[in-house]
């Protein structure tokens, strides 16, 4: 999908959050830390490989994205309580079809909340 909106979104979010344009932004629920910058692109981290010093298994010089996300979701000032609580939610598998699209648009039209029918059915049971 072309258009100006993805360019504007990327232009704003890349410098601040290193945005990868997954098209289904969950920054608010991960302590304003982009999970797509985790080398394993985990949406429900941290994995079990975090080093003793809190750094990444894959990139030893980098602090684990999810250690950072957890810390920020607890301590970042001005973060609404509901956003802090959302940290514990199970985020569904990434919809790879949305890659490159504007997450703002997908938030407005609801496409970022559409999950595969099997997933949706099990949520309905829960």
């Amino acid at each position, binding site marked *: 999908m072309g258009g100006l909106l993805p360019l504007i979104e990327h232009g704003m979010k890349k410098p601040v959050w290193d945005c990868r344009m997954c098209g289904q932004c969950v920054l608010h629920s991960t302590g304003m830390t982009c999970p797509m910058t985790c080398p394993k692109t985990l949406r429900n981290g941290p994995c079990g*490989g975090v080093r003793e010093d809190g750094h990444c298994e894959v990139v030893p010089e980098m602090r684990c994205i999810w250690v950072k996300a957890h810390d920020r979701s607890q301590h970042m000032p001005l973060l609404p309580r509901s956003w802090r609580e959302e940290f514990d939610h199970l985020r569904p598998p990434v919809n790879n079809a949305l890659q490159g699209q504007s997450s703002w648009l997908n938030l407005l039209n609801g496409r970022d909340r559409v999950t*595969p029918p*099997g*997933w949706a059915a099990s949520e309905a049971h829960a």
Partner: protein
Amino acid sequence: MSPTSPNAFEVLCQTRTRPVVTAEFPSFDGGTLDDIRAAAEKLAPWVDAINVTDNPAAHAHASNTAMAIALTQLGFNPILQVVCRDKNRLAIQSDIVGVSMFGVQNICALTGDDVTAGDEPEARRVYDLDGPQLVKVATIMGTGMYLSGRKMKTAPHLFVGAVENPTAPPLEYRAERALKKVDAGARFLQLQIHYRPEQLEAFMAACVANGVAERAAILPTVCLTKAARALSFMNESVPGISVPAATIDRVTTSEDPKEESYQLVRELAEHALSIPGVAGLHITDFRHDDSVRRLTEDLAIGPRFEEQHAHSA
């Protein structure tokens, strides 16, 4: 084993009439069905289920699915480990439904070590799903449908579990992450190898408090090794495992490092089993001798001690 009724491992995880014991099956790089049988016969009398690994530490080996099918056909009870590193959601689902047709029921979902931990760091990493998502996908499959919602011909009977690392940062979040997996459907949790009893205790206390220990059978893991070199290797090279210097020193400076290595594990295991909420033990073995037997006998756990527990219960 009937593909539709619960297997002995599942029953024990739920009834917990005695400690559950599982062990890791060695990786294979060729050989025959007879080799698989011989390795399984060495382990099976002492444990309730055998984990078949999925390219552990990002090294290619005989596939998890082939090994699980072989063990089932030979009459053993495998736990199929599935990692998210090598396959996307389509391939993972076809693996699970495929093995289920051979009677494999126990599925253990892992995120998986990164490709950079292995001998082919140039490989493309996948992680189309992550560990908690995989737990949910396997649980959905147990209801007879794929993630897409498409119905299967018959619902496979699956007993789904996961792993958690009680000694990796952020320590205070690990029990919450375990809860996320239990909410997604995990009914057993095999923990990462640990050398920090105090961290395991804190993790277990949190899992008792948040209900995880009741809803899932938690099995701490110990690793049988021969020498201090193995401990140093794990400390330096295995993601998520740290071994205190004092622990390594204890083995290094001992007169009989091999025996001291065993005693260390025995103490860790004994301690783990004494913690409230712990349902059993998972054993990894790099000694390749009769230590799994020795450990289960010393601790009086496993299928051979069924009666003793029945009497004391």
